[in-house]
């Protein structure tokens, strides 16, 4: 699940909750889903500092990443 699908889904949920009256059960379920997705999206924003790496193609066609000092 990518960051933008999460964000887009949350936007849809907010819109749905704002626009129309949904049955209370559904409203609660939507809210919970929104919170869950928001948690996932926020996790993507909180990852550790990433480095710069270099892609190396092996002779067997596989790929490895090596640190790259810029």
């Amino acid at each position, binding site marked *: 699940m*990518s*960051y*933008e699908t999460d*964000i887009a889904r*949350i*936007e849809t*949920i*907010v819109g749905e*909750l*704002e626009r129309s*009256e*949904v049955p*209370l059960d559904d*409203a*609660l379920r939507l*809210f919970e889903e*929104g*919170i869950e997705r*928001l948690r996932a*999206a*926020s996790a*993507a*924003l*909180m*990852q*550790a*500092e*990433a*480095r*710069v*790496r*270099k*892609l190396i*193609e092996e002779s067997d*066609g596989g*790929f490895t*990443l090596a640190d*790259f000092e*810029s």
Partner: protein
Amino acid sequence: MKRGSRRPAPQAELLEPQLFPVAEPPRAYGQRALMAAMSLAVPQVPGASPESAMSVELLTQQAKDVVEGAFPRLWIRGEISDFKSYRSGHWYFCLRGATAQIKCVMWSRDQRGVPTAPADGMQVVALGQPTVYPAQGSLQCTIFAIDAVGDGLWRKALEEATARLRADGLLEPSRKRVLPRLPRRVAVITSPDGAALRDIIAVMQRRCPTVEIVLIPAKVQGDGAPADLARAIDSVTRWGQVDTVIIGRGGGAREDLWAFNSEPVARALAACAIPTISAVGHEVDITLCDLVADHRAATPSAAAEAAVPVLAEARAEAAAMLIALREALVRQVQRRRDRVGRAAHDLRVGVSRAAERRGARMTAIAGKLHALSPLATLARGYAVARDDSGATLGSITDFVPDVDFDLLLRDGIVRATTRSVRTADEDR
């Protein structure tokens, strides 16, 4: 055809300047040309007399030798005309000046360095070897290189490649993919020691330090750069562990950017399975890579900005969404509470209105009832006569003499007996 069967070369040393009417032969005239010219003056060579008449083959062959000997390969400036490309791949055309022209041929094997076929009317400089074509007895040039004056030839090549990409649908706006808003990994195809890479790393780490940058080193200019770039794009596609691809280089002269105008590179980029950003220099020129990429950035820094959000802003956005989500739910509940409240109020109002209406009616009916009640009449001093069965005795005919009946008064009942009856008229 035998070549130079009567080559006068050995006599060269014997030349005397005074044999020539012109004291100083033109500098362009080479040694062999001088010899050839001299040979006409020597009696024993063919063509000196009707008896020794020279064959056309020999003449044209010797003319060819003379011309080729006289001119080294040289650059010629002129305008292309009558351009024809034969099925063999060889090109035939004329180079034209204002008042003169020379036929030219360019063999297909010599065309590799030329970006595309020149067009009629194009101003060019061409590296050629003047020669004679014996079959037609004509002066012509064998061409080894062509450069358009200005960038005409490059532009033409670019236009042709663009047209081919367009014909294949690779320039359709509908092909443009949306870039991921928050990529975890961004691949950068560029030179490992170029300014472009430094700029991209700096901007991305400033905006969004959580994003991992993966360099795919590639040669961005010079021989082999197009093949290297295409290979790098292909590697990224096969590897696939990346969300966005930036391909580019820092600013440079137009010819330095040419690898990004390579059709194979553009096609590889169009085929890339991952959303792409092109970032080729600061030039106003748009390269083929710019045309096929999902997003075009004017500079590597701009590409980095397009690739990643400012992390702080994204976090603020997430925080705002949490608030929006909560408020939306609260509003749902609020709306429900409001509705219940409204319903209760309506109900109360309805009930009391109904009660009021009912009350009013009761009063009216009660009044009517009251008015109609015989008790009220009694209250005013009247009496009602009733027989023992309870029937009201309303007429004299109801009274039977000597039979008892009740007389209802306001405060009680009187037992009475009928003595006699008479009509109202008799009473009067």
